[in-house]
């Protein structure tokens, strides 16, 4: 049994035992109204959505790259984040690969590819552009030793993800 999640031009089929949240944070505006009156376009942050998929509970308060979740991963758990970057990133070298990866290998996981080192865990990072939108795919496996037995679950999810052309922020 699966569920389907969609929002902000992204959709994914979530397998049983996994759950997902697409989050679009409110922009932070550090400037005063007086400063804005002088320069309305300066200082207003534009936020982009990110999707988190995991086979552990996803709390409301989570960091973009899984802070608040990855600490809870057990040996058989996975965390996947798809984080959108701004349009200025499209066409840059980092985001030059085209298309969301539909398959990752166990060898692409490494303890040094974690955004935050947690003993026993391993991570995967890839950057790409899909339908004119720039993304980072970040995956954390709860156990480095068991990545080989878990990548099929990751690839199943990756194959189900669709990303439409830019839907605006």
């Amino acid at each position: 049994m699966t569920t389907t999640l969609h929002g902000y031009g992204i959709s994914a089929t979530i397998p049983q035992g996994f759950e997902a949240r697409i989050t679009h944070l409110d922009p932070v505006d550090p400037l005063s109204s007086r400063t804005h009156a002088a320069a309305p376009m300066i200082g207003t942050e534009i936020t982009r959505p990110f999707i988190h998929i995991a086979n552990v509970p996803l709390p409301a308060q989570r960091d973009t790259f899984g802070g608040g979740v990855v600490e809870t991963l057990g040996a058989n758990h996975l965390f996947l984040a798809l984080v959108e970057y701004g349009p200025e990133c499209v066409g840059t070298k980092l985001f030059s690969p085209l298309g969301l990866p539909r398959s990752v290998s166990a060898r692409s996981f490494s303890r040094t590819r974690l955004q935050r080192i947690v003993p026993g865990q391993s991570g995967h990072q890839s950057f790409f552009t899909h339908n004119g939108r720039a993304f980072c795919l970040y995956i954390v496996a709860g156990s480095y030793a068991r990545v080989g037995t878990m990548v099929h679950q990751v690839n199943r999810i990756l194959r189900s993800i669709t990303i439409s052309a830019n839907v605006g922020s």
Partner: protein
Amino acid sequence: MVIVLLLVLVVLVVLTIFVSALTASFSSLEARLDRVTGSTPIELRRPSPGVPTGVGGATGRPGRDLVGHDLDGNPLTAAVVGVEHFTLLAFLSSGCSTCGRFWTQLRGGTVPDLGLDTRLIVLAKGADAESMTALTEVASGVDVLLSTQAWQDYEVPGTPFFILVDGRSGAVRGEGTAMGWDEVRNLVALGRGDASIVTGVSTAAMKPSSDAEREAVIDQLLMDAGVFPGDPSLYPGTTPPETSPS
């Protein structure tokens, strides 16, 4: 003579009707009284796979994963089936007065202790069936999953309503309404077959049943030997208690 007999007959008929009416009235009153005094604020259902329980369907029926939105309109799903823990689904609404105490405690971050492996998910209906203005006010800061579909999937009869799902079997293990978190904890304990989280009952304070059995055997052996409670031989070097059994 005939007239007298007729009068007696009429009086008897009138009396019969009067007594019947009184009896019917008393029965009705008794039934109402039973309903009032016999009502309970919570319906607890022990896990009994496949047994219909009336309101809300049946324990043992399959649980369903949840799909909806949060209060900010962000889409989300929540896994209830195929996970290694229990999930307590708390169906609340902005308009029900009984829900107020639950919202208040949730807003204050006073999440009840439901046991280590029980996850709480608070649900409300979606914007199609709930006042978002009122809900945003009562549920401010609370992680709420808005899903009218979930209410239909779980046949929720009203609010507040609580359903416990066993993630391993994917089955509903208990359901009912409650007036406070203590009653919800009882529901969870019954559904899990775990008395340790029932309010006021601490496993640390409970004596194991094997202790009680051992005590009974020793008492019986002593009494068979003629040693009864209060016997001086039980208190070597001390004065036996004054209250000894006859």
